[in-house]
């Protein structure tokens, strides 16, 4: 979605403040409302989700780990259901769930001296080394080959994944209860010590999200060389920071591209500020008022844009049009650098429905022209999918990554039993 920061969308700080001031249920509802209205979107989703989950852990009543996991899972599925176009929400929920499991198992291990590995760790190992247990229900995307599927199998995966996420699954077939049974032994462990531990962990996740952009920017001068012509597609906050950091070390030229008419009010302001900063560092900026990018690509050295989500196959969910940039770069054998914190890495497969998300068409067709409104079936796509073969470097807060290393990163950050968390029948 094009980052048009409209004035009525609350800023991150305001949002967090208002959520804090309300009772838990009210703040969850308020957040879901904002998600549905797309007033919270893009990079803000991750932070906001972490804030909400922190409140869930802090404010809700729970007596054992099972209950806490259930609470987080059910709130998580509601959030994911409210914004299926923002898979990053699911990532954060999974991170928090994994965090709770880790803390709980630590507590338990500390208590009884068996020192045996928790079930979840075993699960994780199984996930990394081999196919998951057959008992696992539909969304077992980790087992899927990381290739771009044909249209038919895309359809199949679609019907399996996002839109069935919230449907009620036979409790007996849900493996998660079974997987987490060992934890119930730890139920009697002191939950008093668990709560602050988990809250600290969420705080760490928040820090990671907030610092990701700066950490990514830290790699800027490795990627950008003096004299480069860098194409920045719809520069997001991450890309802005990356470019400014690079500008402090290097002399290069930035070519901006925006999908819309560059003279439209919202885009102009954001761009102008960035251009000013870059100019101050002596970096040339050129803005391309263009849709197609093949024409300019022979001049360009590398393409930089930020990913909304990195799927487990290496594909990206991006702002509409970035795939045109990536494709043009590939046609000219120019490197494509996708920026995104590790928290954007998603243990799911891309869904066609999400990538074809369409948006407001009024900027393109005047509703005053009845004939045109009548004649046009406008499809203004706002989110787009970049297939993995078009991406050369995934630049994360942990440094540059390649497609072949993604599975290891995912295994490091998510517990296998949380991948399909939103299948748990919640208190919706």
């Amino acid at each position, binding site marked *: 979605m094009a980052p048009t920061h409209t004035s009525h969308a609350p800023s991150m700080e305001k949002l967090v403040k208002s959520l804090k001031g309300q009772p838990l249920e009210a703040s969850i509802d308020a957040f879901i409302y904002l998600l549905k209205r797309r007033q919270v979107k893009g990079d803000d989703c991750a932070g906001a989700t972490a804030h909400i989950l922190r409140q869930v852990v802090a404010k809700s009543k729970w007596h054992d780990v099972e209950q806490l996991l259930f609470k987080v899972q059910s709130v998580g599925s509601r959030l994911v259901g409210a914004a299926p176009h923002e898979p990053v929400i699911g990532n954060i929920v999974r991170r928090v769930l994994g965090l709770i499991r880790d803390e709980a198992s630590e507590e338990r291990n500390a208590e009884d001296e068996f020192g045996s590995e928790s079930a979840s760790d075993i699960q994780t190992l199984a996930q990394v080394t081999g196919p998951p247990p057959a008992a696992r229900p539909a969304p077992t995307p980790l087992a899927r080959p990381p290739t771009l599927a044909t*249209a038919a199998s895309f359809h199949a995966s679609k019907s399996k994944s996002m839109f069935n996420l919230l449907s009620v699954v036979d409790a007996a077939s849900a493996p998660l209860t079974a997987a987490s049974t060992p934890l119930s032994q730890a139920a009697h462990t002191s939950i008093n010590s668990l709560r602050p531990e988990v809250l600290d962990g969420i705080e760490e996740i928040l820090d990671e999200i907030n610092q990701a952009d700066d950490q990514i920017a830290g790699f800027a001068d490795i990627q950008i060389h003096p004299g480069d*012509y860098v194409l920045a597609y719809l520069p997001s906050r991450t890309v802005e920071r990356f470019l400014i950091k690079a500008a402090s070390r290097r002399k290069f*030229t930035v070519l*901006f591209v925006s*999908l*819309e*008419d*560059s*003279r439209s009010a919202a885009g102009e302001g954001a761009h*102008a500020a960035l*251009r000013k900063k870059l100019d101050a560092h002596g970096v*040339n*900026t*050129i*803005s*391309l*008022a*263009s*849709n*197609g*990018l*093949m*024409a*300019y690509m*022979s*001049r360009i050295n590398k393409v930089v844009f930020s990913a909304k989500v990195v799927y487990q196959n290496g594909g990206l969910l991006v702002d*509409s*049009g970035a*795939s*045109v940039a990536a*494709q*043009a770069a590939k*046609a000219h054998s120019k490197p494509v650098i996708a920026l995104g914190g590790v928290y954007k890495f998603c243990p799911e497969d891309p869904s066609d429905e999400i*990538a*074809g998300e*369409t948006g407001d*068409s009024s*900027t*393109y*067709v005047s509703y005053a022209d009845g*004939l*045109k409104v*009548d*004649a*046009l*079936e*406008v*499809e*203004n*796509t*706002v989110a*787009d*999918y970049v297939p993995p073969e078009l991406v050369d470097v995934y630049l994360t807060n942990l440094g540059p990554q390649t497609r072949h290393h993604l599975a290891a990163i995912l295994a490091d950050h998510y517990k296998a039993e949380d991948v399909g968390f939103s299948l748990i029948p919640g208190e919706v």
Partner: protein
Amino acid sequence: MATEGSSAPAATPAAPSAAPTTPANTANPPATATAPAGTPQLTPAQLKAKAKAEKQARRAQAKEVKAAAAAAAPQPAPPGPDAKGGKGKGKQDAAQAGGTQPRTGTGPNLAHRPSMSGRRPSILVVEKDMRSSIPECFSHIPMAKRIPISQANKDVHPAVLVVGQQMATFAIKDSISRLGATLLAFRKVIEAYETPKGNSLSRHFVPHVLNPQIEYLTECRPMCFSMGNAIRLLKAKVNSFDIDTPEDEAKEGLLEMIDLFMNERITLAEFVISKNAAKQIYDGDIVLTYGRHRLVEKTFLKAKENGVDFAVSIIDDPYDRGGQELSKSLKEAGIPVYYSPNLGGLRHNVRRATNILLGAEAVFANGSVHAAAGTADVAVAATNTGKKVTALCETINFDRERVSVDALTYNEIDPEQHSSDGFRLLFDTTRDQYIAGVITEFESGTGNSPAQAILALLRKQEDPTIN
């Protein structure tokens, strides 16, 4: 009447009073009045004739000197002075009379349009200002510019003036429309042309009449390849006339050639291409196109006429929005249309489409297709998805000399989108590996030849019927 009557008496008393003070002023009225009577007094016409005779004498002298110089040191462009000499008689002005040897040597341009040399610098300054914001690395790319009619060369025919303005403002935009308008305007130029005494059309027309028109049009907007091709053929036709071909016969021949040209290369070509391309659309197809191109539009309408049941998916250029017009006209014909306002949904659109029809502005000798910016992105996406990409193009748009491998070799900057903080290229270049076939008016059997076969096509075009 009343005002005239009052002003006349006022003028008469003024004249005598002015007479003694300014002899120059008084010289004229008496001259006209006493012309039949006084032999010492010359009429302006006589004065002119006398000046001309003197000038001619000087000129002949200069020529002799020059010929001597030429014998000593070889001079470039030998035909220049010859043509100039003829022309000079017609319209030299007094300033030229002082023409010394180096002056005549420096050139036809200075000699035949003194007004031009006067205004050139100002134009250049204006141009610099407008172009100063174009980044260095794109600064070689030309841009159309509006030239006030008052600044145009006085030799430019009014019909050409109008066409130039229309091109500069993009009222006439695509290659074939520009070609058509140019040819029609040239037709008027030829009709209005009268060979000056002592000249022949085959020697005089091109350098003194046609070239200023072409220069003006090029200044308004860089020529498109079809115009270049047509003008080359037109000049060849003029050169093919004998020096003593009667003017009427030559003019008739040129007009006939232009008519034939427009019929064959524009009207007929359009008909044949749309007919052949329409044959490649089948029931149930979803045909993807980019922007609005005349040939593609004709093809869709033709296919509908043939009773094919298909849908069209239009990807538009948000800076041009021609696709909206196309969408309207297709809807009127009853063709279902999907409309994407930008390239954002490209992947989705390409995967849904069964085949892709793109209109080309020109085709280079290496098979690269020159078309509206964004076309290459569509072609690449389609080829990567395994869809067939067909380009439609008249052979008049084929350039057999120029080769382009990237879009920065031959391009134009969009004057509309040009501002201090951004710019836009009008065209891009699609390499031949992304084009499965080009449909032209030749190859009537299949109507589809690979872009690589371009040179073979051009050889076919060396058809004696045209030249």
